Structures are given as structure tokens and as C-alpha cells.
């Protein structure tokens, strides 16, 4: 048996397990883990079944199957980065609203205290 498929299976299985463990410990929101889980499953599938990788890459016209893996990984990284950018933008907006709200509430609290005295 080839050592490479065995090694890649082990690595992807490890990645899968760490993602699951992070979710279990509440360190990773399910919402954000979905992409990672899908990616890890795809990698695991291809490391176990080399023939399906070869079949798929030839189907899209790629002669060298590992290139197909690189393309998939690259696309995945782009997608997850765009996704993170939108998440950060959303958090930025919420953070700004909260910061402004804290200042406004503090001001009305001060005014109330002055009025009470």
C-alpha cells in the first residue's frame, strides 16, 4: 500500500477531529465551522479514493490530478476569506453602533443624575 494516501487520510482526519472538538468546546460557532467541515470531508474522500480524484480531474480536463486538489484548496481559501471579510464588516458595524450607544446612554444617565440632585 502507498504511504501517501494513508498519510493524507490521517492528516485530514485530524483536521476533521479538531474542527469537531472546537465546536464541542464552544470555541467555534457552527455557522463558521460548516465550510471547514465540508473541506475536510472532501479532502478525506479524495485521499481514500484516489480513483475518484483521477476520474474527476480528467473530467474537467486536468491531466495531473494533484493540481485539481490545489485548485480546490485555493478556491476554498478565497471563499472562506471573502466570507470572513463580510463577517468582520458586520462585526465592525455592530461594534460601532454599540460604542455610540454606550456613549449616548452614559450621557443620559449623567443628565438623569443631575436632574435628580
Amino acid at each position: 500500500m502507498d504511504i501517501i494516501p494513508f498519510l493524507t487520510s490521517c492528516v485530514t482526519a485530524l483536521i476533521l477531529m479538531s474542527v469537531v472538538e472546537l465546536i464541542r468546546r464552544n470555541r467555534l460557532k457552527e455557522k463558521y465551522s460548516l465550510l471547514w467541515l465540508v473541506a475536510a470531508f472532501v479532502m478525506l474522500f479524495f485521499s481514500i479514493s484516489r480513483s475518484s480524484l483521477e476520474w474527476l480531474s480528467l473530467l474537467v480536463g486536468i491531466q495531473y490530478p494533484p493540481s485539481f486538489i490545489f485548485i480546490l484548496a485555493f478556491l476554498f481559501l478565497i471563499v472562506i476569506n471573502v466570507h470572513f471579510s463580510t463577517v468582520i464588516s458586520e462585526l465592525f458595524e455592530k461594534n460601532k453602533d454599540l460604542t455610540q450607544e454606550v456613549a449616548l446612554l452614559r450621557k443620559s444617565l449623567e443628565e438623569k443624575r443631575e436632574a435628580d440632585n
Partner: protein
Amino acid sequence: MSVEGLIIIPAFNEALNIGRVLNDIKTHAPDLDVIVVDDGSTDSTADVAAQCNTDVLRLPHNLGIGGAMQAGYKYAERKGYEMAVQFDGDGQHRADQLEALITPIIHGAADFAIGSRFLGEKAYQGQFARLFGIKILSRVVSLLVGRRITDPTSGFRAANRKVMAFFTRNYPDDYPEPEAVVLLHRAGFRTIEVPVLMRERLSGSSSITSVKAFYYMVKVLLAIMIDMVKRVPMG
């Protein structure tokens, strides 16, 4: 002047200037209320302002000029003011020019007024690279909004209640002055420019180098291009 107006002064580490600015306003525009928005300063800006018997909004951390200004607009809107005026905390703006700025708002001639250094008989002097950058921005912004805007980076502005409400929902973060002009145009508001006098920078030479001025211009142009493709809710 029977219109209830509020002057919003965003300030980040302006402890040395803010007292003078507040005195200037008290002398020349005693009818207008003032709120200082302390944008998470690390110096005593907020305390100095409070000692001048001025209301202060203290942001728990630094948001940048856009977020600070918007906090002021939210305050003005909730307090029911009819008009809000933007005024710099660094002493560049002159309180004796306020009357000219707010007149079109009070008379309903426009929804938003911008105080321009470049209109009127006494042209503003400044560093060449900076003036050149402003000139290019002015051309682009004028083209986009379909009318002449000579001073798109001016932060000396007045807004009526409608614009105030609009700004509480949409206020640009990065380069709020030129971006806001484009945004207001797209939302269907009427903007007018008013000739005003401003002070030259007090602290000797400006820290803005030619390279920085150029870089600033490019970034603002990009931000405006992005604003043009954004969906804008109508005012």
C-alpha cells in the same frame, strides 16, 4: 434665530485646542448648543470640555471621525434638534462664520450646507500638493453630483433635521466629508456651498507631505467609486 441648533465637535486628543474652540463658539454663537464627542482620547480632552460647561459624549474607544460624527448626529436626533452643525475641534473653523453657514438651513434654501474656503473673494492659501488634491477631488465630486462643489473635504457643515436623521442611519466611515456629499446627492438631498473663512493651521507647517496628499486623494477617489455602486436608501 429661533431654530434649535446643535454644534457637534468630534475631538480626538484636542485638550490643547478644545477650550479655545469652545470659547470662540460661546462668544460668537451663544444661541447654539454644543456637544463635544470625545473619540476615545488618551489625553484630557473630555475633562477640559466638561470644565467649560459643555456637554460631552464619551466614546469608550476610538471610532475614527466618521463614527464620532455619527454619534453626534444620533444625539442631535434623539434630543429633537432642528439643525446640526459640524465643527472641528482643532481650531481651524471660525465661530464668526457660523451665521453664514446656517442661514440657508434656517431659511430652508437647502438640506445641507458646506462651508467652502475656495468661494468668495479671499481665497484660502495652502500647501500646493494639498490644494491640488482637493482640486481633483472637487472636479470628480462636482461631476458626480452634477453641481459645483469647490471644497469637498471641508468639515464645516450644517444639516437640517432630514439629513440629520439620514446620517444616523448612513454615515461613511473612511473619508466622511467627500463621501457624505456623494451619498446625500444619491439620496436626493439638496446641498449648497457657502463661502466661509477658515484659519490657516496654527502649528507651523502641515504634517501632510505631497506623497501623503496624493495617497489620500487616491484613497478618497476609490472610496467614492465604491459609494457610487452602493445601494443607497432614499432620504
